């Protein structure tokens, strides 16, 4: 798992990466720079993922494959694995915390690659 997270954290501008249990909001594995509260990010990202899943179901758009939240001082990028699309499916969220000017496309590619390897 550490090797999988290396794929993400080696991208310039990424401040940390985590694998998070989608149902529980608990950290499964993490590589974070100092100052990032991994437990809090994991719990809140999983909560958000659950609500987004329900919103997308209600909107009839199908399941989410990638989301990107841009803030003033950074960004949160998340790829849910296939099982995360089902409530109680025991899926994993692949999460990256990045600086605002990170190459989003490259991080997305690595997140998708990691999501494939951890399933």
């Amino acid at each position, binding site marked *: 798992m550490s090797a999988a997270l290396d794929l993400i954290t080696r991208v310039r501008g990424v401040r940390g990466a985590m694998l998070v249990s989608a149902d529980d*909001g608990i950290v499964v594995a993490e590589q974070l720079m100092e100052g990032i509260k991994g437990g809090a990010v994991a719990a809140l990202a999983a*909560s958000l993922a659950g609500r987004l899943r329900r919103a997308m179901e209600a909107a009839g758009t199908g399941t989410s494959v990638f989301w990107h939240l841009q803030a003033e001082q950074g960004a949160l990028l998340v790829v849910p694995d296939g099982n995360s699309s089902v*409530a109680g499916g025991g899926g994993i969220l692949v999460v990256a915390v990045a600086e605002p000017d990170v190459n989003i496309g490259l991080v997305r590619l690595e997140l998708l690659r990691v999501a494939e390897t951890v399933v």
Partner: protein
Amino acid sequence: MSPQTRAVENWTLQPLTAFVREASVRLVLVLTPSGQVLAQSGFSRAVDVMSAAALAAAIVASTAELARQLQQPPFAALSHQGPKHGFFLATFASDRGTLAVLAVYDLDVSSLGLVQLFYEQLAADLKAASPKSTVPKQVLAADFERELTDSLNTLFGR
């Protein structure tokens, strides 16, 4: 303030209200390891509070004894997850003595991670708010029933 959140000891009310709001839990009890309830949220019947408090106190006592037999410090928290609901029970030390928090949450609305995250804040807030250096009041058998009735009346706004 949520109308369903009530406290016997008022210093518990604000931290508990914040915890209920942030962690989206369904039921919460703040109690002593002997089962005395300091505050509750979400319960509608006194008998449920009494049952939950007694069972939570029993779990705290049995896990503490299990830890003692394993020569370990007492367990900090216990989590149980069913198909629809999760239970979280944890203890912490405060100036009011050791306190236990029992939280029940719906898996559709909250998660263990969220409950753990905001429990840490709740424990810190309760520690900060707890009255300093109070001498524990001796509970006499003759007073027990009256005190229990008073507490339940307070918890259910009677």
